[in-house]
Structures are given as structure tokens and as C-alpha cells.
């Protein structure tokens, strides 16, 4: 991977993805070998909207590589509340850190940030845009359980605003995967994501109901349907209830179906699933550590390598 930043899953080739996942596996197998790898370096955590797990996951990953982290804190208490532009903020923080992790409520924020700094930028979520580091850990989880070829994946829930969905769908086009998208009509994949999927010639189908497709799935990736997407609360409860998974729902599922979720969940996966062999979401969250360690390691290595043509490794 000779990438300077990680902004969108669309920038990643199959080789790029596999290189990071191979490294993640090596990290998981022997974390001690990576413990001091980036001692003395600093990761800046720039979260312009609330985050618990992504922020902590990057914080932990960096520290396990020997890095220190600096956190700009909540937006309310930072210079952003004084009206500073994102472009200025990242140019200042670049001087404090060896890499930046950015979450921002506007789509395209990470693209803009990367245009203003030389330091590696990782997009940790830009509005309803992309969340590519989540995708890497999703793919790591799928690979460890099923491999990444000859796959049938169902992605369900809020496909319109779900940035983890947009990144995952793009990345899966690099593999031999059939993709099924299951959502209410009002939360279908956005036009721009469908455009990209069609451009790649990906095998995709859209459904409003899980039943017909469930038995074929190797992976069911569930996302949260948010209340604020609906003008009417009754409508929200009606729709959300239709896309809820419980033990009865999974009666027709393949024995080795993996149920995944980027978390946090509210009630879209019943707790009774947690103890079954289908549940992969906590394993998935834990995979954030080796995957983000591998990602930071790769980006910092690239940033410090001499400029030159891309070399196959």
C-alpha cells in the first residue's frame, strides 16, 4: 500500500486491503513485536462530532504501537467554536503530530483535510460519506471467518446515511462477493454509491425484505436505523421493527452465518443473539485494534519512505 492517506474505501485495491489485513494478522499474532515500533511519534485525534469507540480504538491502537496521542477534545471547547476553518485547524495540528485521525459531520471533510496537509490523514467518518478504517476491520472479521471470496453478503438497515455501508460496499467490489442490500425504500443506497457499484460491474441486488435472501447469506451486516431520519416517530418504530434481528429471524439462516454490526446497536439485534455462534459484532469491534495498528503502521511507514514510484511488495 503506497497510499499517503486513507480517505475512502474506493481508493483501495484488493492488494492494498490484503496487505493491511496481513499486517493486522501479524500484529494480532505477536503484538509485542509492534509495541515500540512508533515510540516517540504522536497521533492527533480530531473528532468534530461525538465518538466513543472509534476514538478509543485509534487511541488504544496508537499506544500499542508506542505512540502518544493528543486529542483536540470536544468541538464546543476547541477553536472550532470560534469559527476556525477545518483547513486551518488541520494545518495547525499537522505541526503537532505524525498522523491525524479525523471525524467530521460534513461529507468530503477528509478529502479537504488531506489537500491541506502532508501528514497522513485517516478518515474516521465524514458525515454520511465514508468510514474506511471501519471497513478494514469489517473485512478482517469476514476474512478470518469466511475468507473474502465466493461470498454472499447482506447489508441491512440505513443504507442511505450509513457511512460504514458505503465504504464496505465499495471495498467488497474488489472481491468475489455478491451483495444484497436490504432496507426500507426511503433508506436505499444513495445514487452516488449505486453509481460506483454499477461502474465496477458488481453483483448487487436491492430488497425491502430480508426473508427471501437470508438463507443464501454468509454474512449479514446490520446497521442502525436512526430515529432522526424519520419525520414521524410512529413511522420510525414501524420501520425499525421490520429490520430487527432475533433468534426467530435467524431460524432460516445458514449455520455459519456471521451477524455483524458496526455498533453501537440499539435494539436492531436482540441480545439473545449475542450468545450464539452467529454473533460476530464484539469480535468485529475488538478487531479494530490490530487493524488500526496495521493501518497506522502502514501509513506512517509510507510517509517516512523516500518518494518514489510505487513498488509491489
Amino acid at each position, binding site marked *: 500500500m503506497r497510499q499517503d492517506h486513507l480517505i475512502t474505501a474506493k481508493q483501495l485495491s484488493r492488494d492494498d486491503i490484503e496487505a493491511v489485513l496481513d499486517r493486522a494478522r501479524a500484529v494480532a499474532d505477536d503484538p509485542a513485536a509492534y509495541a515500540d515500533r512508533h515510540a516517540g511519534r504522536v497521533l492527533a485525534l480530531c473528532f468534530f462530532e461525538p465518538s466513543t469507540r472509534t476514538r478509543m480504538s485509534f487511541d488504544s491502537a496508537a499506544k500499542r504501537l508506542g505512540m502518544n496521542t493528543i486529542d483536540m477534545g470536544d468541538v464546543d471547547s476547541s477553536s472550532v467554536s470560534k469559527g476556525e476553518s477545518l483547513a486551518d485547524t488541520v494545518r495547525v495540528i499537522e505541526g503537532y503530530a505524525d498522523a491525524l485521525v479525523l471525524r467530521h459531520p460534513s461529507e*468530503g471533510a477528509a478529502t479537504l483535510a488531506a489537500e491541506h496537509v502532508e501528514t497522513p490523514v485517516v478518515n474516521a467518518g465524514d458525515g454520511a*460519506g465514508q468510514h474506511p478504517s471501519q471497513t478494514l476491520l469489517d473485512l478482517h472479521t469476514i476474512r478470518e471467518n469466511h475468507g473474502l471470496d465466493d461470498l454472499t453478503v447482506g447489508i441491512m438497515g440505513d443504507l442511505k446515511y450509513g457511512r460504514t455501508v458505503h465504504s464496505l460496499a465499495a471495498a467488497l467490489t474488489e472481491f468475489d462477493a455478491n451483495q444484497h442490500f436490504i432496507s426500507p425504500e426511503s433508506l436505499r443506497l444513495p445514487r452516488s454509491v449505486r453509481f460506483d457499484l454499477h461502474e465496477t460491474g458488481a453483483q448487487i441486488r436491492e430488497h425491502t425484505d430480508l426473508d427471501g435472501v437470508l438463507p443464501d447469506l454468509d454474512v449479514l451486516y446490520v446497521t442502525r436505523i436512526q430515529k432522526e431520519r424519520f419525520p414521524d416517530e410512529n413511522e420510525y418504530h414501524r420501520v425499525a421493527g421490520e429490520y430487527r434481528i432475533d433468534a426467530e429471524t435467524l431460524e432460516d439462516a445458514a449455520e455459519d452465518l456471521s451477524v455483524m454490526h458496526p455498533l453501537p446497536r440499539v435494539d436492531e439485534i436482540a441480545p439473545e443473539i449475542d450468545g450464539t455462534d452467529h454473533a460476530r459484532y464484539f469480535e468485529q469491534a475488538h478487531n479494530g485494534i490490530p487493524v488500526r495498528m496495521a493501518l497506522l503502521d502502514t501509513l506512517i511507514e509510507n510517509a517516512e519512505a523516500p518518494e518514489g514510484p510505487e513498488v509491489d511488495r
Partner: protein
Amino acid sequence: MSDHELRVSKIRNGTVIDHVEGGQALNVLAILGIDGSEGLGVSVVMNVPSDRLGRKDVVKVEDRELSQSEVDVLSLIAPEATINIIREFEVAEKNRVTRPDSVTGVLSCPNRNCITNAGEPVETRFDVVADGVRCDYCSTILRTDIAEHIDV
């Protein structure tokens, strides 16, 4: 002699943009960044009959020869436009507009949540795709209503 030439006299030197879709002439000027303050002679004819378009607009800009890269962006709102470079009252060159690969700083992104609409010091940039343009920042695709998002 065609109808529009009866309404506005020939220019000596400059550019005539003909076969602009009816109603788009002011957008053409906006895209070209011509607002009259340059002191150029500008004539606009709107909604005159056209065999090819039904109704068309014509824009004449005196003493300025527009380059192909300047006019190609017009293809987004006036794909049928022809560009006539006039020298000493004669048509010295006649060209069609061709679709550019990208458009910078002309359109605003229709996605209100795009970072380009957040007061950042950034020019918009759109890739031209098969059936419209696409924001380089948020990937939103703009298809039919491009003229409504001209922001120059």
C-alpha cells in the same frame, strides 16, 4: 440572414456563442465570468426561433476571443452551442463545445452537508461523468438541474 442577426448587429471582433438553449444566456455569461464590469461590449438575444432548438439564445462578446477550455464548461448547460470567433466581421473559426473532464469553481454542490458548503476556503470541483457531474468531495451526482447550481 437569420432572425437573431436582424435584432443585433454584427460584431467586428470577438466571440459569438450561438445555439444556446433558450433561457440559458445569462448562465452562459455567469459561467464565463462576464458581468459587464470588464467594459466589453456584450449583446444577449434570448428565446429567438431556432430550427434546431425550437428557441435559442445567442451571446456576443466583443473584443474577446474565448478559448476552447473557457467554453467547454458551457457544454454542461448548452451542449449544442457553437462558438464563432469573429475577426473583421468574418467568422475566422467555428467550433462546437466538448465536454471537459472536470469543472472547477463554477458549480455549487447541491448537497448542503458537503464540506464545500461549510464556509471552507475551497473551490468546488466536479468530475464530468456520463450523465452529469459529480462532486469530488462528497461524490454527490448532479444530473438534470446543473444550471440551478451555477455559482460564479
